[in-house]
Every structure is written in structure tokens, then in C-alpha cells.
């Protein structure tokens, strides 16, 4: 029951730049342990992500999506294969990247502003400029007035917003998020998805999101890479042709539901 594709692709094409490969995962495999206890976490992963694309790695727990995330970020060396970012092979932690995890990893000894500024201090960026930018980001995620609060004075959703500000501060080309909203309630999560879409579309960053929420993946992504477990493989690489900006109401449209059905059926069969 898809809409005529021409109509949708026309919208997408209007604001898209010439396609440029940004991240390439080549024949990546990952094994943990040795002998009888050896576990193959990933097998034969090939993936090309274009500049400015929003890609979700979707799959049930244990499908290796977080392992793949770590490999792309250069935080884990793959057993086989390699990753290239902007044509350069990844051999160490990638720094042209902002990362957010399921835990917000805010530190109690810094204020909201201080936590965002950690990024600038560690990278030895210009502190004055970074401060201005940090204040702007904090305001953009709706936390103006909370700059001097401590993490423990904030709700889970607010904390995760601060973590995302920290990931955005240094204007890197890539935004990577591993289940950033996994610990939030459904209502907060919807709002965070809207805000993230807004932030991402303004930033032009390439974004990779690890999630096990089908709806979240469809809502946010240009492409969904569905992974199947044991060993982790790419089961489906699905382009989401919904117009942007997407709204919460869109979740009730036939297209959205169709994507949802398709993905759920595949996850069920694995």
C-alpha cells in the first residue's frame, strides 16, 4: 500500500546534496573468546553510509548492533575486515564524532554547562567560543535556565538532552548514538525523537543510531539496517521514504505502519 514513490523521492531529492560516501564498513567480522567458548558476534558486515544520512542499526538484543557501533567508532578493533571514514581506515578511536550512550554519563561534579563543556576542555577547543555555542545548544534543547543546575537535579530526559548537547558541541561530522533514549518513558521518548530530528536536520551530520525500537528507527531514519542475531548479520537494508520533517501523526499513516509490519515480520523470523 505504498504511496507513489515518485512523489516521496521528489521531496527527498530537493534538499539532498550529491551523494558522497562517508562511512564504509568492509567485510567486518567480530569474534569474542577462543575455542569452544568462541562467540561470533558479527559476520560479513558490509555497509556504506553516505554523508548526511541518518542510519539506524535495528535489531533485538544480542544481534551485535552495539558491537558494530563500537567498531565504527574505533573503540573496538574488528577481528576481520575494517572500517573507513572519509576514505581513511579506522585504527584508533574516531574523534571526528560525537557520541551518546544509553547512560547519559554526566558527571555530578560539573554543572549542566560544565558537562557540555567537558567536550571542549578535553579537546582543548577555544573555551570562550565553545561556551557561547554550548549555551546556544542548551537553549536549543529547551534547557535554558538550567545551565548551572547539577545533573542530579534534572529528569532522565533532561539529562539525556545534556548528553546530546555534549555530543554536538564540537561540530563533528558524525553523530553516533547507542540506545540514547532506551531508559526514557514513551512520552519523553517521542519528544526526544522530534527534537533529535530537528537537531540532526539542521546540522547536516551523518548520524548512526542503535535502537531496538522499530517505531523510533522508522521515524528518524533515512535507512534502517536490520540485524539478525547469532551471528550478527545484516538481514535487511531498508530505505525509509517518508517525507521530512516527520511528525508524530505520521506514525498512524499506512506507509509508516507498512514499514513497521515489514520490519516486525523479519525480526520475528530470526
Amino acid at each position, binding site marked *: 500500500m505504498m504511496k507513489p514513490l515518485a512523489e516521496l523521492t521528489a521531496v527527498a531529492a530537493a534538499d539532498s546534496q550529491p551523494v558522497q560516501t562517508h562511512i564504509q564498513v568492509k567485510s567486518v567480522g567480530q569474534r569474542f573468546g577462543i575455542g569452544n567458548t568462541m562467540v561470533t558476534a558479527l559476520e560479513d558486515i558490509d555497509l556504506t553510509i553516505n554523508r548526511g544520512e541518518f542510519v539506524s542499526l535495528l535489531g533485538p538484543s544480542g544481534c551485535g548492533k552495539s558491537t558494530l557501533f*563500537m567498531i565504527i*567508532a574505533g*573503540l573496538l578493533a574488528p577481528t576481520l575486515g575494517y572500517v573507513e571514514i572519509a576514505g581513511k581506515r579506522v585504527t584508533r*578511536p*574516531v*574523534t571526528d*564524532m*560525537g*557520541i551518546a*550512550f544509553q*547512560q547519559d*554519563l554526566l*558527571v*555530578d*561534579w560539573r554543572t549542566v554547562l560544565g558537562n557540555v563543556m*567537558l*567536550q571542549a*576542555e*578535553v*579537546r582543548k577547543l577555544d573555551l570562550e567560543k565553545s561556551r557561547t555555542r554550548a549555551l546556544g545548544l542548551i537553549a536549543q534543547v529547551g534547557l535554558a535556565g538550567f545551565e548551572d543546575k*547539577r545533573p*542530579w*537535579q534534572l529528569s532522565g530526559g533532561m539529562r539525556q538532552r545534556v548528553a546530546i548537547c555534549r555530543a554536538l558541541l*564540537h561540530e563533528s561530522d558524525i553523530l553516533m548514538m547507542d540506545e540514547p533514549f532506551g531508559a526514557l518513558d514513551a512520552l519523553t521518548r517521542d519528544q526526544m525523537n522530534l527534537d533529535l530530528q530537528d537537531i540532526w536536520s539542521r546540522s547536516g551530520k551523518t548520524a548512526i543510531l542503535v535502537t531496538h525500537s522499530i517505531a523510533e528507527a522508522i521515524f528518524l531514519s533515512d535507512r534502517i539496517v536490520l540485524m539478525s542475531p547469532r551471528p550478527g548479520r545484516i538481514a535487511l537494508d531498508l530505505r525509509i521514504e517518508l517525507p521530512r520533517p516527520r511528525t508524530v501523526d505520521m506514525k498512524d499513516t499506512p506507509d509508516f505502519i507498512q514499514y513497521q509490519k515489514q520490519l516486525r515480520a523479519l525480526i520475528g523470523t530470526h
Partner: protein
Amino acid sequence: MQPREFSLQAPLMFLITLGILLAVWQISSNMGWLPAYIVPSPLVVLAKLHETFGTMVGHALITVLEILLGFILATAGAIIFAVFVVFFRFVDRVAYPWLLVLQVIPKVALGPLLVLWLGFGFFPKVLLAFLLAFFPIMIATIIGLRSLDGNSINLMRSMGAGRWAIFRYMQLPASLPQIFGSLKVAITLAVVGALVGEFVGGNQGLGYVLVVANGNLDTALLFVSLVWISVIALAFYGLIAYVERLCVSWHVSFRDSLAALRA
């Protein structure tokens, strides 16, 4: 959750209970229930305190210096050593077991040996204070530095942080609450170390006064020494608690989260 307020209630309660205690004690002495050669009355102790003040200040100063030097060396040494244990596997494997061996020897038993090696002067006391204070600080620092979760490290590495930056921005601040806890234990141990050192040999310091007073059956002087020692130990403890409040007031232990659980 509100930050825990500093209140005068606790010191006030202390003064009230102290007053009651002293009153009961004085009355007991007056009634003849407490023989003066075993427990002199508060007024007798007070008179002695006044009478010996000049000489006691000198002894107290020496003991304070021993405690201070031993404690500062222990703090610096233990934290530096802990950093080496955490960052260099070699140190962890080779030096740490020996430190454990050293720790299980009762340090007080080392007193005579230290006197033999270092004489009756100032340094064996400092060394004993140092030895007693070292271990708790080292253990707390090691545990604190190691309590960093994997994703915090991943986050820092994605920022380009090396070992030093991770230490400076994450591990050290995160372990400060534990370190301060251990400092509070260590300062009281440093006091014990200095006093025991003075028991064993030498002719100055509050520990020496204790030994002399004991020899002369001068219980009033014994109590005077105890007053000096307690005041010094309390002052040190208070100073550490104050610095702790300045440094780690962000820690959960300063938030009074348990208010609801308390009677």
C-alpha cells in the same frame, strides 16, 4: 532534593552533653565516689591545664608537627602509589603484595625497631604516623580510580582523551569522595602513630608527657594530655571535613537522600 544544610544543632548538642557529663563528673568527685588518684575532678584537671599550659604548648606543637608531616607524606605517597598501581601492571604485581605484607605487621610493633634505626628524634614518630596513615588512603584511592565504567572511558576516548586526560577529568574527581573518606580515617591513625612513637622513645611531645605522667601517677596530667590530644585530633578532623565540603559537596553523601529513612 535539597543540599544538606550546615546547622549549629550538632555542635550545640555536643556542648550540652559535654556540660552534663562534666557536671555529673564534678559532682561524683565532690561526693567522693571517684578517688582523685584514679579520676581527678574536672576542676582539678582545669587547674592543671592552666598551670601546665606553657610547657604543654611546646609538647603539643611537636606532636602536631609529627602528625602533620606524617599525614601529608602519607597522603601524597599513598595517592601517587595508588596511581602507579592502577596504571602500571608491573607495580600492581610486584610492589602491591609487599605492601600488603607490610600492612599486616602491626605498625606499633615496629616502634622499637624504628627507634633503633632512626634514634629518639623527630623522624621515627613521623615515620610511624606515615605508616599508619598510608594504607587506608592507598586502598581508597585504588578503588576510586578503578571505579570508572567502560562507556565513560569510551566517551573520553572519542573526545581524543589519553590516559592523563581520562585521569584528570574522570578518575580523579570521581574518586575524591572516597579519598576524603579515607583521609578522615587516616588522620586519626596518624595521631596514634605519632603518640606511639613518642611512647617508645624520646623526651618531647604529648606521648612523652603521657608516659611521664603515668610514671609519676599524675592522673591530672594524664587527663590534661588527653584533652590536648583530643582537641588536636578534632581540629585536624574538622579541617579535613571542611576541605571535603569545599571539594566534593556535589557528592550524593552531601544531599541527605536518606532523610526519609531516618528516625
